[in-house]
């Protein structure tokens, strides 16, 4: 992989019907990419879904796979996004099972720092919901490892293009 390899995002508006996800993911597999994350859900138009894929790639291979995806019959439109020009959000559920020497209080302070929410509580466990860009989720999970993490479920990134972008000065 060449030097301009980075995390790239594909946002595709597609027919919401069986086999479409398979066609796209099969195509991405054929081009030897590893999908970092994938998120699918109904879009604003009934009958259509929006799929968001993220993967590491250099520009030219990414550009080629974008064209291949655009060639697929069930795709309405596809756009390349990156963190600089898009709002990217991910949601994770993290289940903690704090016990000595980690106290619930320590977990709570971590949760507060990251502005996460407790969504389930039991005598032994607590489940936390956190959303944000992928870096934030990564950081949270990294820190959480010290606090008795039991399970992690992540949605994968969803992204929409920003309407106004301010050019970053060098």
């Amino acid at each position, binding site marked *: 992989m060449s030097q301009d390899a980075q995390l790239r995002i594909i946002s595709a508006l597609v027919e919401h019907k069986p*086999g479409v996800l*398979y*066609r796209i993911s*099969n195509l991405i597999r*054929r081009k030897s990419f590893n999908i970092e994350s994938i998120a699918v859900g109904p879009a604003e138009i009934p009958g259509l879904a929006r799929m968001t894929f993220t993967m590491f790639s250099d520009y*030219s291979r990414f*550009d*080629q796979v974008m*064209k*291949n995806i*655009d*060639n697929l*019959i069930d*795709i*309405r*439109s596809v756009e390349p996004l990156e963190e600089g020009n898009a709002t990217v959000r991910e949601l994770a559920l993290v289940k903690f099972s704090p016990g000595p020497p980690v106290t619930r209080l320590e977990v709570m302070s971590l949760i507060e720092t990251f502005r996460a929410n407790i969504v389930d509580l039991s005598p032994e466990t607590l489940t936390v919901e956190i959303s944000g860009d992928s870096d934030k989720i990564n950081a949270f999970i990294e820190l959480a490892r010290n606090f008795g993490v039991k399970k992690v479920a992540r949605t994968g990134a969803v992204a929409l293009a920003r309407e106004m972008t301010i050019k970053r000065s060098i």
Partner: protein
Amino acid sequence: MSGAQAVVEALQREGVEAVFGHPGGANMPIYDALYDLQSFRYTPLNEKSIRHILARHEQSAAHMADGYARASGKVGVCMATSGPGATNLMTGLATAYMDSSPVVAITGQVPSFMIGTDAFQETDVVGMATSVTKYAFQPLRVRDVPYSIKAAFYLATTRRPQPVLVDIPKDVQQAEDDVDFPEYVHFPNYGPLPDPDPMVVKTIGRAILGAQRPVILAGGGVKMANAYRELQAFAELLVAPVVTSFMGKGAFPENHPLSLGCMGMHGSERTNKLIPECDVLLVVGSRLSDRTTGKIEKFAPSTKVIHIDADKAEIGKNYRLPVVSLVADAKKALQALIREVEAGMMGRQRDAWIKRAQEVVVMAKTELDGNGSYLSGAETIRMLRRFLPHKAIVTTEVGQHQMWCEQHFQVIEPRTFFSSGGLGTMGFGFPAALGAKIARPDVPVFDVAGDGSFLMTENSLATSIEEQIPVTVVILNNRMLGMVAQWQRFFYNRRYSAVHLGRSPDFVKLAESYGAEGVRVNTIPELETAVNRAIRSPVTTVIDVPISPEENVLPMLPPGAGIKEMVVG
């Protein structure tokens, strides 16, 4: 009407004259509907009946449909049952996919309520076909059947032609419903290619008019777009030499003074060496595969490459940096370019460049094997050209004989040369020849084969005899898997591993056992006699030509080498 009847009527409405297939449990209702049609118990939409040609293996059915499509320019249709029938089709569909040929495959599937249960003869055909088709439909209601078939034909023939599959569960074939046959189908993000962008045409026109040493590289896309005449007119207007990829072979008459033949792995050495000399290379309808360009970094490093293709995903894929690119149908693009440069070319001469290019037009060096007891494969092909009329259609299998055809068989008329260039499918040529003969019963059709390739689909002899489709197979018989053996000679220190085929079968007796004619020839005069007899024969002829097992296809561009680094002997 039943789903099966809807299949047949939809095919009739598409003007299908022949389907190539094999029946089985899951497509019996379709075959039953065909039976009705053929015995006129079911009143067809129009008088035109559909001829069914029974293949002896589904792979051959797909190749027949492919050969029909390439020879006619229309869609070739093949049919198979579920499970093994459908999986056998896959090689043929992949072949058509790689060479951009419009084939529609109709497969039977287990009843919809059994899909996913591993029922008898169930395979995930849609899943399997996804990688080798433009699209795969699976209509689950009778009323969806006409739409699926209409859409399959539409998708197969628009933009870049490619195969499409329609997988129909048996209960959908059997069920009765009122059906509508749509006149049009619509896909929101897919439609016919737009006309060439005038701004890009202008830019290309300027680049071409500014060129001192232009070359046109024509690929298979020119043939698929039926842009033969436009290519010739454009080349003559530009006074530019034309080279082709192997898939583009025949896109330009190879006896034309501007023709430089094929470039690539087994192209002409001098043609390959000329490419880096040109200042502008106009690529039309070629994906610039490794077999055409050699190592891409060494391919025309200081040449301005202009890339025209029907598929935007081909631009920048193999050759990264064309100076200009145009996504368009080859025919329309060439028409637009002719209009664009017509005035500017008035009175232009290129004597020096043409003289240089024409020095290149010499026959590729041939190793004429000194072993007197055998004919040379290369010489046999060259002679075959002399004995066959220009209008004769030639198909090939895959291997040494195929590359000798590339080097020594001049293709002169449009739509007369078909080979599996992309996938390289041994066994393609013979069934494709049968399909081509259905499309063009008026011309002789020859399959040039090797003894290894021919055995892959030899049982199509039964089809050719029973269905009375007379073609001729010329087997260059070296008792070897010759191309693999050649690579073992060159790159594996003559360690011949699993390439000896021996003398079985006796191809003359094999042909005769099917009811075909078989003849063995050992001299050029015998070859001429056999070819002339075969052209007139009412049945298929197999001409067995023993050649030396040691003859090489030369020159050769070793894999990974740059375009100027050919091995000549």
